[in-house]
């Protein structure tokens, strides 16, 4: 389940027209959501509020053996109108599951952001500021996010912690996204790490006009993307490289939605494939297979996700006072036919080749969002239950 501040941050992306999933680092987002979900540990309580469209606060209190917590504040120059109350927000936006790749959208032109008044430009670039203080560890997180232009974004994130070397680290990330391709360059002060990532989407270029999906139903309609990343640590003379590709069906695809990825790490001889399929309206499966050609080590993880829906409870209408006074019945109002089902909860489960299970149940009770998770290690017969956690979120 996304934390409230991440939810607000995504709302900022959406409001500012930034497709944050069109990035090489999100190539395997579906598999990660289905297989590498985090099970809560201990008891956590989050109380958050988007008190004004520009300002959000969140407080977290957790207990894993000892009590810790965090305070976080967020400011955005772009007013956010997304529902923030935990009773109203859409669970699909909070719970990451099977990620349906959307059609690419043509980015705004630069002139669209210009605002003129009296012959002067008055438009400002949208900015998001975020800070979080962890107690009692006294760790400070800070984020500065700025939309430089319709196709560019700068993200500065910093952590200050006395336990880190040099007292903290700063990561600068510049993203350039034109839809057809995306490049990212990053620099981290920790070890002088320099990195570059790129993703290229095969198929029609959204800049050339609106993409019209074909009407054929018998063949896959999807998109193939390929990308690469490269890192080099200037101080410790180390580096890393990887290539990846993904095929994912688009919403217009009539058949079963699926996503398949392949990533390669030629330096380490690592090969990883994932295959995720949305078997039904509320059911998804995913598998991941890792293999290392140098050490012959392999790893297999299976996972699934089940959304449980429930009918909305029909409100029993009392006879109105006016009707009573008039000695008649109320007129029968035809109920809305296509009232959407309500999400009762999401069950996620994964199992790997060592028979380690991960279970997560995320749901909403009244105004509270909660996630209950556990990891079970069947190899340890005497004590299979490794961790059990409960996380409760409330926001207004």
């Amino acid at each position, binding site marked *: 389940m996304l934390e409230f501040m991440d939810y607000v941050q995504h709302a900022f992306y959406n409001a500012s027209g930034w497709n944050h999933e069109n990035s*090489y*680092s999100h*190539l*395997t987002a579906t598999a990660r959501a289905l297989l590498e979900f985090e099970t809560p540990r201990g008891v956590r309580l989050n109380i958050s509020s988007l008190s004004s469209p520009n300002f959000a606060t969140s407080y977290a209190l957790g207990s894993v053996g000892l009590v810790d917590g965090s305070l976080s504040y967020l400011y955005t120059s772009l007013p956010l109108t997304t529902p923030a109350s935990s009773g109203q927000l859409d669970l699909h936006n909070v719970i990451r599951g099977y990620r349906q790749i959307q059609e690419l959208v043509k980015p705004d032109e630069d002139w669209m952001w210009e605002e003129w008044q009296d012959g002067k430009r008055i438009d400002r670039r949208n900015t998001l500021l975020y800070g979080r203080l962890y107690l009692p560890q006294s*760790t400070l*997180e800070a*984020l500065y996010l700025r939309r430089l232009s319709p196709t560019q974004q700068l993200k500065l*994130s*910093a*952590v200050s*912690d006395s336990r*880190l070397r040099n007292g903290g*680290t*700063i*990561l600068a*990330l510049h993203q350039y996204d034109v839809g057809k391709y995306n490049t990212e360059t*990053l620099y*981290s002060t*920790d*070890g002088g*790490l320099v*990195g570059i*990532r790129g993703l290229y989407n095969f198929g029609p270029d959204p800049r050339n006009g609106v993409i019209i999906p074909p009407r054929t139903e018998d063949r896959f309609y999807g998109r193939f993307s390929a990308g690469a*990343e*490269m*890192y080099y*640590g200037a101080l*410790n*003379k*180390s*580096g*890393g*490289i*990887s*290539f*990846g590709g993904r095929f994912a069906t688009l919403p217009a695809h009539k058949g079963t939605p699926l996503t398949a990825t392949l*990533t*390669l*790490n030629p*330096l*380490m*001889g*690592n090969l*990883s494939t994932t295959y995720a399929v949305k078997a039904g309206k509320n059911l998804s499966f995913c598998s991941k297979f*890792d293999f*290392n050609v*140098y*050490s012959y*080590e392999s790893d297999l993880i299976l996972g699934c996700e089940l959304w449980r829906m429930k009918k909305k409870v029909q409100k029993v209408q009392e006879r109105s006072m006016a009707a009573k006074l008039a000695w008649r019945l109320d007129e029968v109002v035809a109920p809305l036919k296509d009232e959407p089902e309500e999400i009762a909860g999401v069950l996620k489960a994964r199992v790997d080749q060592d028979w380690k299970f991960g279970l997560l149940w995320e749901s909403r009770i009244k105004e509270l969002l909660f996630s209950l998770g556990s990891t079970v290690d069947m190899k340890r017969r005497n004590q299979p239950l490794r961790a059990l956690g409960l996380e409760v979120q409330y926001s207004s």
Partner: protein
Amino acid sequence: MAFNFNWSPLTADADFYSRTQDLLTAALNKSPKPPIIVDDIIVNELNLGSVPPELEILEIGDLAEDRFRGIFKMCYSGDAFLTLKTRVQANPLNTYLFSKPSFTSPQPLAASSGLTIPLQITLSEFKLSAFIIVVFSRQKGLTLVFRNDPLESLKVSSTFDSIPFVRDYLQNEIEKQLRTLMMDELPAIIHRLSLRLWCPEYKAREDQEAAQSAKSESNEEEETPIDPFASPPQDAVDARGNVLDASEISSLSLDGGSEIHSLFSQKNLLRLGALTDSHRTLSLFTPSIRDAVFRAWASPAERGESATISTPSTPSLSRTQSNLGNTGGTTYTFDTASESSHSSRPSLVSFQSARAGLSLGSGNHSRSHVGRKKKTRVVNLRRDKTIDDMSSVSGDSETSEAACASEPAISTQIPEEPEDNIITPPRSPSGKVRFRTGSDEDTPRRLRSLTASRNAEPPLRPAFNLEAKINSEAASPPTGSAARDNTSSTRSSMRPQRPQRPTYTSSTFSPYPAEKVSTPSTPTPYTPHATAETSGSILEQAWVLKMAGEIARRAHDEKSSRASFWANTSQDGREDSPPPAYEPAPQIAR
């Protein structure tokens, strides 16, 4: 003086290397491993080499046949080597990300995917330089502690020598790991090895005790009390410094002499109990016992033997002994004097002054070379008393002044001036005191008559009780000092319970016996418990605690293997002497 350290015989033992490898493996995997190491570290090969370390003796604190304590400076640059096997993470990006906060992580997609590689590391060319504290005792094994970081340098050669980053990383990590190993784990390993080598009877005793507890308790009671007179010291002396012969010592016994029990005052014992408790529980409260040297920091072995000899300020031990010795030779006449002092004051005073004057002469004389602290004590007493004496006792000025330090006369004033009374309590039973000083040539027969008379006289006991009560209520400086003297003396006198009573060796005595005799109202039994409690120096205690867990773990499998062993050891009579330092360990273990 020369010491002979054998280096090679260690390696001659076929089992030695395998055992050490097991212990090292366990030690290496105990502490959290750096992220680059993804598997257990297994010690594959170990060789101590042929070049022994150079040891330079800096200090030897204790030296005996079965124990040793000393500080060494050790330098080692030999040909020992150690080969470790483990699996490491070969992707530097993976380990880079491991300890970094996720918030600023670059979040690579697959560039950080891991590759674990089996790795063989050879550690060689150790260069060590350290100050080592070695404490060895046959019962406690060998304890070795590094005062500083011993590791100067070492060479790490591995399969990754061609990659500079990995090599540097490994070098750093291994040095770090080895430092903790040297400082924390190695002493524990050595201790455990030494226990196996030298201390089979420790396990045996454990078994024995367990067996005993299973049996009827009557057996235990027979064995537990330790008679300090079981093994008389080589050169026992009485208060005058005269050597006591064996027959005289043998005439003293714990059971026979009620006066021996009465040597300890209950109040002082309580105070001592509080003191030992405060040491054991780390309580910050320490009962103020002036002129007492706290030997809690000394090892239990030392305590008993060196306490009185090394510290002039704790005369207590010798005092008790002198008292004992004197009881052998006290005169009956003085006893009557004390009685008279209780009954009739004036006559007493004169009588005392005469007698005490004589006795004090000798007492002062001997006191003069006892030590500085004693003198100060004397001064205190004298000042207070002279006033009292002068006021209360009319005629005898000079003699009483001289005698005041050990004067029993003051006891007569109990009802009138509480402060004076406070001083007196030690003296009041003065009959004994005076006997001692005056009577060198008395016969055991007289002693018997003395004890008989004392038992026969009821008035003495109540008086003592009263005095003790007053003592506790009033806190005037002179009282305090007197009481403290007593406490210190009783405290140290408790120690002689160990079979080897070294205390007799000190020859300084006579001035204070008065205090000693007076104090006790209730007999204090000798309990073996007391000796067992003197658990050892802080250093050793820390080790005991640390190793208690280890020992507990090993105790079980040890027992089975040692079962035959202790059957032998139980015959050599070692169990007579209680195990001083490791007594608490089995308790914790259970």
